[in-house]
């Protein structure tokens, strides 16, 4: 499944499936500690001290029952379609037992994405029962793409690509959907790149940036929840020293995950804090430093300068740092996302993207416009509030969710 941190993940994922994971208390709204963490921390921690620098990619999984190589079927496309049909009920929380039986990330992402009934899909179905692909139909199709936030330019291009071979032919909505998904997948596929934090230099410094409320802290928290179980020696850095209780928010995630959180009081200099964090990570031989930053609108040059300073300061300790700069985008955002990518890329040298909140009615179509324009990998998508709702990005699943089940 997800290479959050080396191959261990696969094993852990399987176990997650095997474990009779206690039914989540649905009525209890307080987000609980991830149950599997408690179960896995102990054995892994025992294994770790033997090698102070464990390369999790090399480390063979500890022999826990059911530790088999990751099932290939998770990448299976037909399964996706199948699942779409199998679980059409709009339940907010799928039955946890049923959920564990189908652990494929593809399916999980798909089901998360499909929770929001695709407007585009409904639209297409109403446009194309069976009719000729003429100018008028194409225009309607283009409108539907625009209504999914693809933007006028990309919508026009995708429609043109679609019309190339099929213009003036009779088409069904199924055909149109498949073709459309194909066009969109073609744009997104090159950007599909799972990030493996186990690779690369130690300590690996990962900076999370984005506008206010896009979901940076939550994304870090979700990643952190997985790391400990995977044997990573990580440090979270509460670099949002501006927003009230942002530090506390990250601290809660850190406590849940059993990962230390470095913080200063609200109002402290974020760059200084990050410097200390990197210093500490180098001293203690940590694997990974996840840095939260304050949300900032990309047109505020003062705040963007502050971000540039964080990066400059980090580079004093490690000229290659930060090794990843991940821009967190909210799926509800419209064409402004393009401006966000441009500005953060310019200031912070963004290396990858995460799109959050795809479990709502917004489908994040602007990601297609971004993929069209920027050569930036898309690492994860967020499809819910739980840790496991952060999923690796899959071009096919995303395109499918945008267009709707075929």
């Amino acid at each position: 499944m997800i290479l959050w941190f080396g191959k261990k993940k696969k094993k852990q994922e399987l176990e997650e499936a095997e474990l009779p994971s206690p039914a989540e208390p649905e009525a209890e709204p307080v987000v609980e500690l991830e149950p599997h963490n408690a179960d896995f921390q102990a054995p892994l921690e025992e294994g770790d001290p033997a090698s102070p620098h464990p390369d999790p990619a090399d480390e063979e999984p500890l022999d826990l029952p059911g530790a088999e190589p990751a099932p290939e079927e998770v990448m299976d496309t037909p399964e996706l379609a199948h699942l779409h049909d199998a679980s059409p009920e709009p339940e907010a929380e799928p039955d946890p037992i049923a959920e564990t039986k189908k652990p494929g990330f593809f399916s999980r992402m798909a089901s998360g994405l499909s929770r929001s009934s695709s407007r585009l899909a409904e639209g297409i179905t109403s446009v194309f029962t069976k009719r000729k692909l003429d100018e008028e139909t194409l225009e309607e199709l283009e409108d539907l793409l625009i209504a999914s936030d693809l933007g006028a330019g990309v919508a026009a291009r995708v429609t043109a690509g679609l019309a190339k071979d099929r213009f003036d032919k009779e088409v069904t909505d199924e055909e149109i959907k498949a073709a459309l998904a194909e066009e969109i997948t073609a744009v997104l596929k090159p950007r599909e790149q799972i990030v493996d934090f186990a690779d690369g230099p130690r300590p690996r410094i990962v900076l999370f940036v984005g506008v206010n409320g896009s979901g940076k802290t939550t994304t870090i928290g979700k990643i952190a929840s997985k790391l400990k179980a995977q044997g990573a020696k990580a440090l979270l850095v509460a670099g949002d020293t501006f927003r009230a209780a942002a530090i506390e928010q990250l601290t809660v995630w850190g406590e849940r995950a059993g990962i230390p959180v470095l913080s200063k009081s609200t109002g402290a200099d974020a760059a200084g804090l990050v410097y200390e964090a990197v210093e500490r990570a180098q001293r203690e031989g940590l694997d990974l430093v996840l840095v939260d930053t304050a949300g900032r609108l990309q047109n505020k040059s003062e705040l963007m300068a502050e971000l540039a300073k964080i990066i400059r300061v980090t580079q004093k300790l490690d000229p290659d740092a930060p090794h990843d700069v991940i821009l967190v985008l909210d799926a509800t955002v419209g064409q402004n996302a393009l401006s966000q990518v441009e500005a953060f890329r310019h200031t912070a040298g963004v290396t990858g993207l995460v799109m959050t909140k795809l479990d709502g009615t917004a489908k994040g179509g602007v990601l297609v416009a971004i993929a069209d324009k920027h050569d930036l990998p898309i690492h994860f998508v967020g499809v819910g509030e739980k840790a496991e709702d952060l999923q690796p990005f899959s071009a096919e699943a995303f395109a499918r969710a945008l267009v709707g089940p075929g």
Partner: protein
Amino acid sequence: MFDALSDRLGGIFDGLTGRGALSEKDVNAALREIRVALLEADVALPVVKDFIEKVRERAVGEEVIRAVKPGQQVIKIVHDGLVEMLGGEDADTTLKIDSPPAVIMMAGLQGSGKTTTSGKLALRLAGKQKKKVLLASLDVRRPAAMEQLAILADQAGEGVTALPIIAGQLPADIAKRAIQAAKLGGHDVLILDTAGRTSIDEQMMNEAAEIAAIADPSETLLVADSLTGQDAVETAKRFHERLPLTGLVLTRMDGDGRGGAALSMRAVTGLPIKFLGVSEKLDGIEAFDAKRVAGRILGQGDIVSLVEKAAENYDQEKAERMAKKMRKGEFDLEDLADQLRQMQKMGGLGGIMGMLPGAKKAKQAMDASGVDDKTLLRQEAIISSMTREERRKPALLNASRRKRIAAGAGVSVQDVNRLMKMHKQMAGMMKKMGRGGMKGLMGAMGGMGGGMPGGMPPGGLSGLGGAGGSLPGLPGGAGGGGLPGLPGGKKK
């Protein structure tokens, strides 16, 4: 990234001036451009379609007024249409909070800004209207959400308190406890901040409806991000169906988004937009103004914001001192350094330019010339390298002094010379402003174009009058000292 609509329409209507009424063909061509412009501004498609039809009806057959370009005339029609659709000039932005404790319930998606807005509203009500406000967070999901609201209550200070947190309590119970506490504590207003939720999360939507049923809020506000795209309609519609919404709050209006979501949400719910969130600070909330938002959706800049921002960031005392000096025609390098710092406070060159009409071209010119916020910092460094006497009497600066200053600031002597030249120009401008009041200010803004290589495009400032004078004018006497001038480019 977006061209102002006026630029787009310019081409279509060239050579049309004075040709009688606007024909359907002319209008259709223009409407296509308007459609794309609105979509790029994130106005939702169905809303765009409706709107275009309305404009078509109004525009076809309209007499072309001589002296005004037809393109501008269409823009005026569009602008007026937008203002009307957004609720008109006298949109109701008051809150119904007469019967204490009046409950205001906040709802919206995750990360839309509910908690921050709750804090802002509390401060506004406690300050401007002298209300006693109780803040209660019903967000039991996001870690530290309750602490966040408690901290905001603390920051808001007098008149605002937060309901003590009891861990493990359910939202509905917290709501009941909050109402009880508000009654007992003699609070005028109770603001219920709720957890962020997606509109298709049945369980969570039920919870919100239950809270609304318990609290019977006199105002239920949907808080939405102004950067929202096409989804705005869907979210607004679904929340409206489930909750007794009474108004909308749009946050992050200080971003560079075009705010089309405002139009979409207003159109689909018919609810008034009450407030706009305009900064991260606790006082960063303003009553909604249809005209400003309309101008912004059309990409005509937001002059009012610019002036307000200038006023806001301008130290009143300093401004008065400066005005006095200006009247005497004095403007020394210390004043220039002040101006440079002010500009950085206002969000730097980019921030200021973003609010000017026709700013796109000016920005391009700026980029081409290599003038950026670093230039501002460097210029400030040059001034900092001077002695106090030199700053007060720039005439003292001879070649050897300039050399010393350049070395001190780590720049070349040419940079120092350039700064001196800019200072001279600005001193001249300031003199004009000191004498001419508002007219002088506008002159100075025009003059700023001269300072920029390539100059401000003529189409730039004309956008002001271009919309048939429908853009809000500059309020008089903004900030006393007025707008800080922009420094000239690196190379002229």
